């Protein structure tokens, strides 16, 4: 397996992971502030925090496919 396939897979999951982390770093404090005033929003906030995870989840799927197609 060439050097580029694992690198591509790592980038496929790594870059969305950074994007997810950035998005969650914005949603998290806003959610915490909302919870301080309205604790009944807990579930909504948890869901909100989970929403950007779609990016890293899809990145992971793409990374797996890259590795499989690359012959890992």
């Amino acid at each position, binding site marked *: 397996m060439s050097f580029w396939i694992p690198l591509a897979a790592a980038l496929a999951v790594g870059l969305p992971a950074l994007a997810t982390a950035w998005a969650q770093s914005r949603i998290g404090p806003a959610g915490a502030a909302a919870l301080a005033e309205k604790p*009944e929003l*807990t579930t909504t906030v948890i869901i909100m925090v989970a929403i950007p995870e779609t990016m890293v989840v899809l990145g992971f799927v793409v990374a*797996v496919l890259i590795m499989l197609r690359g012959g890992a």
Partner: protein
Amino acid sequence: MILAMARVRILGPRERLPAVLEQLQDLGLMHLAAPHDLPLLEPVTRSTREERLRHHLSSALEDCATATRLLGATAVGPAAPGMVLPALVHQLRRIRRQAEQLVARVQRLEEEQALLARYEAVFHAFEPLLATQPRWASGRAYHVVLRAGQRESVEKLRAELTALLGPAFEIRSHPLPAEETAVLLLVPEHAAARVEQLLAAGRVSEVSLPAGFAGQTLAQAMPAMLERMRQLPGELSRARREQAELRRRTEPLLRQGSRHCRDRLAVLEARDLSRVTTHAFVLEGWLPADTRPKLRLALDRRFGAEVVLEELGQDEWTAEDAPVVLRNPRLFRPFELLVSLLPLPRYGSIDPTPFMAVFFPMFFGLMMGDVGYALVLLGGGVLLRRRHPEAGWQRSLAEILVACAVFSGLFGLCFGELFGDLGRRWFGLHALWFDREEAVVPFLILAVSLGAVHMLLGLVIGAVNAYHAHRRQAIGRGLTAIMLVLVIVALLASVEVLPRPLLTPVTIVILVSFPLLVVVEGIVAPVEFLSTLGRVLSYSRIMALGTASVMLAVVANRMAGAFGSVLIGVLFALLFHLVNFALGVMSPMIHALRLHYVEFFGNFYSPGGVAYRPFGHWTPPPSRPA
């Protein structure tokens, strides 16, 4: 499902209104609403006496709540009939005052005790030093506590005082906990000003005494403070005993008084919703359609022909105004908890609870998919269910966990997993369907296919839901569903799962349907259709989380052999499995919820329903998860 509601109107002689309200409160069936505007009907005017009564009830309720909170009493209990209001108001006010006084006393004593406790170590340190003080009756004493790291200041101070006063002073020190040092300094009266300057320059201040002992020296205040410290525990326990006794004595009255006041206030509020003429009254409201005979029977029995109950036709009310009651079969009922975390669905729309009861544990099981973890989860669920046999959110959660555990176990058998690959290695367990560790692509196809089915179901429900009120929207949803099917067929044909000749006609149909969709739903239709496809792909998280879960379990098992010591390896493996289990419960729960709330509900869910709150005797509100 959302129960069918009926809107009813009750008419009768005006003087019977209080009795009718009393009967309705006993029945607890009718969700009252202001009657439609009809000629000659007007709201009941409040008399001064009623305003006063309302004020008394509100303040009695506040007294009751304050006393209950201060005494730590239980607010829930049976109602007591025949309470006399003026006496009750006075009793509750008296109890509140007593509770406030007692609580303030306990608080004052606790604060005093905490304050004096801070001096305890200082007293013990100065006790041996103070023996020196009487010899200096004409001198001046300084009581100083040096902070940690200032201990060498004693010698420095001694050197400076020697330079200043010669041998005419005495300095004694005693170590304190936390590396502090108690210092007693005795100097002649005439040297006091210079010594104070020296202490100020060294940023050393004297021990300050509590406010009650201000103006005294430490030596003078100490005996009194020690005596007070000895008295305080007794006084405190006496005050607490009195508080407990007051709670024991007044708890039943607080419970009953609270209920009584709430019930009477509810009657007054219900009265505001009635309309009257000079001789008659009208009350309107909602009740589940199947309880109409019960209401009719109760009114007939008590009032005969005097009071009339009539049902309003559906043309006289709108679905938006009707309150919502969710009622599902016992098997599905726990999942109402998950639906209740969102605003209620509107009356006339579809209750998603049954769909959630089927798909939520299925998605969870696909993600966890391990017999070992499923057994642990089942144990947790059963334990929680036993601890909370009464209806409530904890019981619902326990039952949801059990359902999730059952699905996880079943999928665990399908994937041949017991704590990862341990079942395979130790017990020769084999995958009945496919091995998630190896078959990543089939798992991905399964996850996305399930997503397609789930989304299609959502679109169909959305079309059915919107059919009566928003025909255009219903057609749009239907068209989107058809196009989604066509896209799937085209994809399957392109990879030759379906016959390849299908590809061209299906693509043509998609291209033709697209403008049709734009005509029906507007210019946003293409964007919405693409977002629908994106939402189908979002279900690939089932595969991603499932694969991550099995990989982590396999890593945990390999850890056992990766360390030199078997014991350390097994401990690490157990810890890793524990972490994986915690992740394996949290993540699938959150992601399965997200798939429902965002992806599935987005197709049909209409929030904004009004909760059904029947007029009845007060009951404590059901507990809700945070």
